[in-house]
């Protein structure tokens, strides 16, 4: 039996198509997912992300414990700032990708993917042993709403933000604020490639805040958006999805995200779980074992998760699609894929993506030509 978010009744009353996702009953779309996608690109969208995990790490040694547990030095974050990072296994495989918010000197909020939240909480608790820090999974007590899109700041202002407003809140920063009378931790983060905010609130306040944001946002073109739009938005923005691009089988370097791994300062290496394996991945003489690339299909059939990437010339398998969808913004099918295999061989380590030519995707038996492009597919104008 899947869990429901505090907004389940709202979704049902809106006529949402509901779907099981990561053990939760979630809205897939409310009407047309393409229209929801375009609303976020052009105006604003309202998302229920209450399935995400909220794990609090607190105590005098909370920063030190997280530095040991994660591939980034979150001890370097100033209070009120956030960082995208990962929890890796000792062999360098990715256990989850996370956003860590430093709420105060001794208090951190770790936001984990729904499917991994319990594992992340357990792993953080194990890795915090011996540190003066406490790990608490408070996912059930929290709801998370996101307002994403170029008009997000106007929508929040219209809903009513107590005090100085949120206009000066920087990207990857967060602070407590009262929005439409609801106490929230408001973060300028998201998963759509647009400006936007994520609002962490008490589960009991979810419905009140949703209704206030929906009403305030309507004149700005805000509409509720489901998981289908969220997936095409993040795909266009080149953002990885755990379970697709990120798994325990890949390292951050395979995914082109080696920059999140902090090995320490020159002459002052730091220790963290997975360091040795990740160092080896970074220093591999022949480049990473695989490489994540963007694909744009020339035809209209859509490369999807799990489809083989092949050479157009002889059909040799050289990779696999991790995510694919018709892109509402580009008007053609796009995909992310790992390229591996000898047919491409060493060149994948040091050749610009657009120089890799002659590939196709095996779409249910037919080889459909694709072009390899640099990620992301879409970048907003700032």
């Amino acid at each position, binding site marked *: 039996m899947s869990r429901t978010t505090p907004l389940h009744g709202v979704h049902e009353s809106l*006529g949402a*198509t509901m779907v099981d996702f990561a053990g939760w009953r979630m809205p*897939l*779309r409310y*009407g*047309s*997912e*393409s229209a929801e996608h375009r609303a976020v690109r052009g105006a604003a969208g309202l998302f229920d992300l209450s399935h995400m995990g909220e794990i609090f790490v607190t105590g005098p040694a909370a920063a030190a414990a997280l530095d040991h547990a994660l591939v980034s030095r979150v001890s370097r974050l100033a209070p009120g700032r956030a960082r995208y990072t990962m929890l890796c296994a000792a062999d360098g495989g990715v256990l989850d990708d996370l956003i860590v918010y430093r709420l105060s000197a001794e208090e951190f909020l770790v936001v984990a993917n729904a499917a991994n939240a319990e594992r992340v909480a357990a792993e953080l608790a194990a890795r915090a042993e011996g540190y003066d820090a406490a790990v608490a999974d408070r996912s059930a007590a929290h709801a998370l709403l996101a307002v994403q899109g170029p008009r997000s700041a106007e929508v929040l202002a219209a809903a009513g933000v107590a005090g100085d407003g949120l206009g000066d809140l920087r990207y990857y920063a967060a602070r407590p604020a009262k929005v439409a009378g609801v106490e929230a931790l408001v973060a300028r983060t998201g998963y759509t490639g647009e400006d936007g905010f994520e609002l962490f609130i008490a589960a009991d306040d979810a419905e009140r805040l949703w209704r206030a944001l929906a009403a305030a946002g309507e004149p700005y073109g805000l509409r509720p958006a489901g998981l*289908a739009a969220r*997936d*095409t938005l993040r795909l266009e923005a080149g953002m990885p999805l755990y379970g697709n691009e990120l798994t325990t089988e890949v390292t951050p370097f395979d995914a082109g995200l080696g920059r999140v791994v902090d090995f320490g300062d020159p002459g002052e290496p730091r220790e963290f779980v997975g360091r040795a394996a990740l160092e080896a991945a970074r220093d591999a003489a022949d480049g990473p074992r695989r490489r994540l690339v963007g694909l744009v299909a020339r035809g*209209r*059939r*859509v490369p*999807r998760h799990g489809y083989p990437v092949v050479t157009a010339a002889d059909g040799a398998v050289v990779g696999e699609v991790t995510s694919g*969808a*018709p892109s509402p913004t580009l008007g053609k099918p796009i995909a992310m894929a790992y390229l591996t295999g000898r047919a491409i061989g060493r060149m994948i380590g040091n050749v610009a993506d657009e120089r890799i030519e002659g590939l196709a995707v095996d779409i*249910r038996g037919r080889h459909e030509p694709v072009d390899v492009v640099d990620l992301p597919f879409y970048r907003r104008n700032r």
Partner: protein
Amino acid sequence: MSSSIPEELGYSKEHEWVAGLDDGRVVTIGITAYATEQLGDVVYVQLPEVGSTVQAGDPVGEVESTKSVSDVYCPVSGEVVEINQAVVDDPSLINSDPYGEGWLFKVRTTGEAEELLSAEEYAALTAGDS
């Protein structure tokens, strides 16, 4: 969203509808509103070629949406005599008008049709599931 199910059509278990079974040998085939609601926004349609011979129960095309792809099955045997080019050019017609402008192709029937469901039977098949 609620699926409308026109009384006068025949339905396959694979969510195609068939029109014109009673009054002629050329039938029109499309997919049901229920199917389009399950699919979401349709972005690509592949239809059989005009002049091709089809067997009842064969996959003859595909309908692709943001989240999924489905085969289109032909519920009758015969020859494809016309395809809806408008729906190839603008697949969203399948979402906006599945029983009208969103029709897919026409077949001159030669043999037996699949056992088709009545509107009532099709409603029962899809009840409580949308």
